[in-house]
C-alpha cells in the first residue's frame, strides 16, 4: 500500500498566524482527503482534494479558513489560517491508492494554538 509522509508532525503556533501542512504520497492518487481529529473525538472530513480542481469542502469548513492545494497527483497541502485555540487538533491527510479500497493515512500533525 502507499506511504504518506506528512509534516510537520507537531507545532505550537500563535493565534492569528497560519500553518501549512504538507503531505507527500509515494504513488499517484486521484483523490486526497484532509481530516481533523479534535482531542478525544473521531475524525471529521474537512475537504476532498482532486488534482487540477478546487477542493470540495464539507459543511462547517470554508476555503478561506482551510485553503488546500493539490498541484499534482502525489502532493497536497492544507493551510490553517488565522488560527485560534479552537483550531488545536490533529490534522491528517489520507489517500486511496488505486485498487486498495481503503485509505492510507499520514502520521498526523498535532497543532496547538496558544
Amino acid at each position, binding site marked *: 500500500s502507499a506511504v504518506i509522509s506528512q509534516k510537520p508532525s507537531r507545532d505550537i503556533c500563535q493565534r492569528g498566524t497560519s500553518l501549512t501542512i504538507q503531505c507527500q504520497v509515494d504513488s499517484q492518487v486521484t483523490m486526497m482527503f484532509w481530516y481533523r481529529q479534535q482531542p478525544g*473525538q473521531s475524525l471529521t472530513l474537512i475537504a476532498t482534494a482532486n488534482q487540477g480542481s478546487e477542493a470540495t469542502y464539507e459543511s462547517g469548513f470554508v476555503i478561506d479558513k482551510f485553503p488546500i492545494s493539490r498541484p499534482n497527483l502525489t502532493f497536497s497541502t492544507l493551510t490553517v489560517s488565522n488560527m485560534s485555540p479552537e483550531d488545536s487538533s490533529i490534522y491528517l491527510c489520507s489517500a486511496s491508492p488505486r485498487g486498495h479500497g481503503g485509505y492510507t493515512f499520514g502520521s498526523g500533525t498535532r497543532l496547538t494554538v496558544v
Partner: protein
Amino acid sequence: AQSVAQPEDQVNVAEGNPLTVKCTYSVSGNPYLFWYVQYPNRGLQFLLKYITGDNLVKGSYGFEAEFNKSQTSFHLKKPSALVSDSALYFCAVRGTSYNNDMRFGAGTRLTVKP
C-alpha cells in the same frame, strides 16, 4: 451519504476473554467497511477491511470482523484479548465509487484489564 455508528463509547474486558466492538453502517449500495486502531499519540493503523467476498474478514493482530448485510453491521472481534489491545478503535465506511470519501464512527475505547 454514508455513515457509521459505534454505539459503545467504552468497552471493558478482562485479558484472555473474547472482545466485541460494535459497528453499524448506512450507505447507498454496497459498502466498503474498515476498522482502524489508534494508540495514544500515534496515527491511525489499518486493521482490516471488507470489500467483497467472505463475510468473515481476518486482519492484523488476531482481529476479525463479520459483515452482516441484513443487520448492516460490521462488528470487530477477537477470541482472546490482550492488555496491549487497549486503544481507540474506529469503524469507517465508504461507498464503492472511486471518489467516495471515508466516514468514521465516533470511536470506541477498548480497555483490557489484566
